[in-house]
């Protein structure tokens, strides 16, 4: 099981992206970020290495 995010981790991340969070928000945000990352981390373990991200935006299909 991966280490859970601590409020101090979230405080550092928030500072890095320019957010100023009140201390009382750090613990609930850490829990929410933990839950979110647990939900989306399977994407990292999926076989997507050969798929490019969108390079241009055009919804039309090219056969």
């Amino acid at each position: 099981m991966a280490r859970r995010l601590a409020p101090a981790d979230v405080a550092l991340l928030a500072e890095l992206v320019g957010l100023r969070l009140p201390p009382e928000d750090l613990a609930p945000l850490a829990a929410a970020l933990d839950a979110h990352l647990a939900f989306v981390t399977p994407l990292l373990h999926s076989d997507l290495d050969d798929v490019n991200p969108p390079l241009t935006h055009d919804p039309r299909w090219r056969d």
Partner: protein
Amino acid sequence: MTDLGCVTIREVSRLLRQRKLSAVELIEAMLSRIDETEPLVHAYVHVAAEQALAAARRADAEAPLGPLHGIPIGIKDVLATRDAPTQAGSRLLAGFTTPHDATVVRRLREAGAVIIGKQVTHEFACGQDVPPTRNPWDLTHYPGGSSAGGGVSVAVGSSLGALGTDAGGSVRKPAAVTATVGFKPTHGRVSGWGTIRAASAPSLDHVGTFTRSVEDAALLLQAVAGYDPADRRTVDETVPDYLADLDRGVAGVRLGVAPGYFAGPELHPEVGALVEGAFKELERLGATLVPVELPAFRFTLPAGFVILMAEVAQPHRRWLVERPTDYVSGTRRLLELGLLIPAAHLQAALRARMAMRAEVQAAFRQARLDAMVTPTLPITSMALDEMVIDRDLPRLIPFTLPWNLTGLPALTVPCGFTPAGLPAGLQVVGRPFDETTILRIGHAYEQATPWHRQRPPLAAAGAR
């Protein structure tokens, strides 16, 4: 006066054209209808009564511009209107006005439509707060969102049509739970210029419509579709006549079904039974159902949430620092998370999205599909006092969000009611820019079934 709870744009347009009804009479009746229904359903944040009456007087004095001439349309409160505030359901934009109309609003006005008011949205269309709007099929139930006011107003007859925005299902979801027709065209078909940027995830967001019939959806799309140089997401594709093929039926049409994703354990049996009934009806009408596999669709929720949160959060950086307490707490939390998402996750999500897009394109080609059909939602509307936003938002959108990620056009039409009297929707999904085919399929199904003619008791009996 015709019962506004039951009529369509097409029917009212005919009365206006025949001078059996004036635009002023129609708007006056609509304003009365709003007065009757608003205390119960709260679909509007702003009713533009004076402006609407002035527009109706002009409409009566002019030669008809087309089928939307004099027709009252509601606008989601994230789309700019030059003569009414645009507040995106947030204290941060309280009283915000702009001299501009969103392109879609301008195009509606140019087609003769009358903007009747601004309609309720979740704060910044994020779906994290409980709006005051109520579902007219059961006033204790969720009305859908984020375009909460649009579906409800069309269902109760306090507008004849409405515009919303849809980044994960925000038009189709409220339409499905109010037994109205919700339509999200292809990404790039309709301009999103004039959508409040802080309420939009640009690569997922679509302007869509609420109506009482598929024909009305075609009428609204005809007015708002087309390339807009102000919105570089729009594509310079020819806009066809959306009514031309509406009555061609579905004989010979090949419809993909993907039970591996759309009939999983999250699908409630009552909704599943209604949608199965709709599939059988389409077969009876001459369509062929073709099973397809879409394994990459398992990425829908994780990829969709990452992209949605990351995109919608960016414009909020300054407000989150300077005015954090003006947000609803759930919205603020979502936006903060959106700014903290690691780049590795966003990259994986973007790649997953492309895998989904390639897979559905291959399915259409290999199975020679004209469209796909799915349930719109896996469940019906839930009781508001039982709803937990964090838990329930992902339960509501797994079948709508794939089509925001892939950009394909998607239409929801009513397909029946559960034993508790709550509506369910059938979703029809098409090839890029082939709105014509899904409108035709939806229209054929609608004409063969009674569901779209059923109105909530509130609408059928009047609000009093």
